[in-house]
């Protein structure tokens, strides 16, 4: 029998709020263990949660960026389970009344067809503490770091709309783009600001039944999500074909062995409303105000790039899919650089150069103003493209302006016809065959002669001027 997969995703996104969700402790990653704690997030007797307005705002922006509908009333519940990473024996989460319902984003499937992946809901919740398992001699010990306890999260729950690992991966990339645009989260699976669980079941292709699903956790890159889903589809298909029944359980992805293995279920019960965090009531005005704070999203920006700057839809989509790249592009435009030049230099020169140096665009020593100054010299023919590429390398290592580097390194292009005349005469005398070929009408030979003059100038000559001078001389 031919099977198809039914895949739903649950994505935890850590919000980059300055404080935790229910207290004023810093929401900071990488600090010494247990320094960002207080009676509230350690849940000492008598402490009470104080819901952060910033967390509500950032969570709401994420919902709006995903096309979801903010609910006029939402509330926190107590998700009860016991584990040493959970200081109060329950996690504050929105189980019954989530912050938003519905929504979705467009992805492009394997066949190049656009497809809307729908969201079921988005809810807020607090993160739990981090457990560190170590050995003290021969004794295994478990340490708890409460720095992460109570940090703000949203959980994005999709409909089971994906049919392949590819679609799931495309969705995660698109989701990351949307959320990063809001500036509310870094959304990186690398550092755990985005965590993904996948629910996978299989069914005979073409049917609409929903079979028992298996949850897979512990993937730490988009690629791993795809691999884990692919593995799980194969595993379930084999199991069903062997006459086994799929049972509801949770599995862990093992990135080294590239397999999923069953994990022990956490004891968890139904959620009860939390009596201490007031229900969240959002007015229509508040929601509209949040919507107005939403930046221009990638699709709209790409459309504008096409209209305003004459890029192709592909170029525009590529540029706008990364908030930083799109911003850098627009900064170059503001500096007066032609859109096509800006796009070309940004995507083929600057971004690869940054990658090589493991730098983020936001932290680039080559600011838009410096790159623009370089590109202006190029467009004014003060330097040629080769020289410009070399100057770019120097811009990474030196704080000098491009102009100063060009002068110091002698990159300035020679466009002075008098100075070039002498070089040309020398080359023409040395290359009689090529001269003859040009006169016979062979275009290739002209290129060769231009190259020879360039070489003689030490790469500083303006090729356009050389070409003009050569044409004039050989026409006589």
């Amino acid at each position, binding site marked *: 029998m031919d099977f198809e997969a039914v895949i739903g995703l649950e994505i935890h996104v850590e919000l980059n709020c300055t404080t935790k969700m229910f207290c004023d402790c810093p929401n900071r990653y990488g600090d010494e263990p247990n320094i960002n704690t207080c009676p509230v997030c350690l849940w000492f007797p008598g402490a009470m949660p104080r819901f952060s307005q910033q967390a509500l705002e950032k969570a709401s922006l994420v919902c709006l960026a995903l096309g979801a509908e903010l609910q006029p009333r939402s509330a926190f519940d*107590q998700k009860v389970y016991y584990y*040493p990473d959970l*200081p109060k024996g*329950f996690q504050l989460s929105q189980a019954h009344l989530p912050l938003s319902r519905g929504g979705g984003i467009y992805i492009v499937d394997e066949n190049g067809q656009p497809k809307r992946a729908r969201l079921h809901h988005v809810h807020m919740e607090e993160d739990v503490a981090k457990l560190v398992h170590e050995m003290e001699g021969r004794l295994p010990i478990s340490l708890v770091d409460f720095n992460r306890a109570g940090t703000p999260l949203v959980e994005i729950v999709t409909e089971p709309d994906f049919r392949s690992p590819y679609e799931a991966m495309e969705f995660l990339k698109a989701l990351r783009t949307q959320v990063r645009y809001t500036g509310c989260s870094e959304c990186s699976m690398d550092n755990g600001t985005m965590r993904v669980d996948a629910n996978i079941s299989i069914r005979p292709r073409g049917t609409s039944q929903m079979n028992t699903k298996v949850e897979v956790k512990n993937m730490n890159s988009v690629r791993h999500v795809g691999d884990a889903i692919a593995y799980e589809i194969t595993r379930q298909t084999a199991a069903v074909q062997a006459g086994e029944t799929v049972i509801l359980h949770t599995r862990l992805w093992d990135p080294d062995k590239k397999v999923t293995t069953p994990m022990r279920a956490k004891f968890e019960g139904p959620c009860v409303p939390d*009596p201490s965090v007031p229900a969240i009531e959002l007015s229509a005005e508040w929601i509209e105000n949040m919507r107005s704070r939403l930046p221009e999203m990638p699709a709209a920006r790409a459309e504008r790039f096409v209209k305003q700057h004459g890029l192709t839809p592909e170029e525009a989509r590529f540029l706008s899919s990364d908030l930083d790249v799109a911003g850098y592009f627009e900064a170059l435009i503001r500096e007066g650089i032609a859109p096509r030049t800006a796009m070309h230099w940004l995507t083929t020169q600057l971004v690869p150069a940054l990658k090589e140096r493991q730098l983020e665009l936001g932290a680039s020593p080559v600011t838009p103003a410096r790159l623009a100054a370089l590109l202006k010299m190029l467009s004014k023919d003060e330097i040629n493209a080769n020289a410009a590429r070399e100057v770019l390398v120097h811009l990474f290592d030196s704080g000098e302006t491009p102009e100063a580097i060009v002068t110091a390194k002698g990159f300035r292009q020679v466009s002075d016809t008098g100075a070039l005349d002498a070089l040309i005469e020398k080359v023409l005398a040395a290359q009689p065959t090529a001269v003859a070929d040009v006169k016979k009408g062979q275009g290739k030979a002209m290129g060769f002669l231009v190259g020879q003059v360039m070489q003689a100038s030490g790469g500083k000559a303006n090729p356009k001027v050389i070409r003009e001078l050569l044409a004039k001389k050989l026409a006589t």
Partner: protein
Amino acid sequence: MTGDILPDSVFIHRSPETAASKGGPLRGLQIAIQPNISAAGWPTEAGSNALANFKSLEDATVIRRLRQAGASLCGSTRMSEFGFGLQGSQAGGALQDQAADAELVLDMMGESRLAAGRTGVCGFKPSWGLVSRYGLIGLIPSMECCGILSASFTDVREILKVIAGPDELDFSLPGEKPLDFSPQNIDPKNTTIGTINEAQDGLPAGQEEAFRASLDDLNKAGFAVREMSFPDFPLFSPVHQIVGSVEASSAAGRYDSVRYGPRAAGGKNWNEMYLLSRAIAFGPLVKSYLFQGAFFQFERYEAFEDACRIRARLLAGMHALTSHVEFLVFPAVEAAPSTTPASLPQTYAQFASTLFANVTGQPALYLPPGRSAGHSGIQLTGPRLSDARLLSLGEQLLHLGRGGK
């Protein structure tokens, strides 16, 4: 100037403080608390082994406000485990021994009112949401409230004035306008007080007569008393028990012996460490309550949902009654301190006529009997946030009962 005095039969901790040097409305007032109200540095065991040797890190909001108003805290009295019921509680004892002018007692099913009854003083449970819960170590967050015990009505009012009002540490306080606590004249000619027939069902014979006697007092004071029916009334107790036990089971989840509290030896892994530690953390009454809550949450969730719905209905029902009459009067049940450990059903039976106010969040007042009254006092209530008028009514009745002084 301060020095710990040895604990005695009433106090578990005594720390006579000198009054704040600056004046304040409560200057000179000696207040006793219970060790489930956080006072920085004080032993705060909340009557439970789960918090053995625990000392508060900071002051509860009520404590901070009392100190700022010039009151002195004289110590904390022995209490029941987590303030649930009165088993082992000495609430009222500091007043009886004249060691304090007032006491703060957390009221989750009527504890402050019953303790006031056995002491013969006024006991007041404010409206839920009027007094900050920050720093109170309770068990039933949606029902408990800081109660005030004192022989003096003025003190009750002045203390409430100081501790009530919005608190940036307790977001669960509704953002309501501050109440005006100044005494108001309650005109008997324009004020009807209601009784609920169903609230008297099952009263012991002697107590029914006592209740009649207390209604006579109201009539004598010129108030019209109107009998009303509220068939849902018997549901208060099961609703309190189901919702309360589920909340308690959740609230007590923090006592896992990871960050504080005693840790039992012998656990081979964290799971065993949890189970063993929680086994020694709680006494039999609280343990059975927590079991019950876990049962409703995990095995009978629909019953919990029903209880929540019925709670909303009870709230609406009581609200409707108080649109016909301004106040309601309830029997005040005598609560003799018992030496044998109480079971859960016994505990609920004891609080049958007080726990309604915890379910609805209404203010409730226990008023001791006058000199020659043939009863053991009465319990009065009004709509939520009618605290000021309820206190004024109580004060007027008390003065009449004491011979109109």
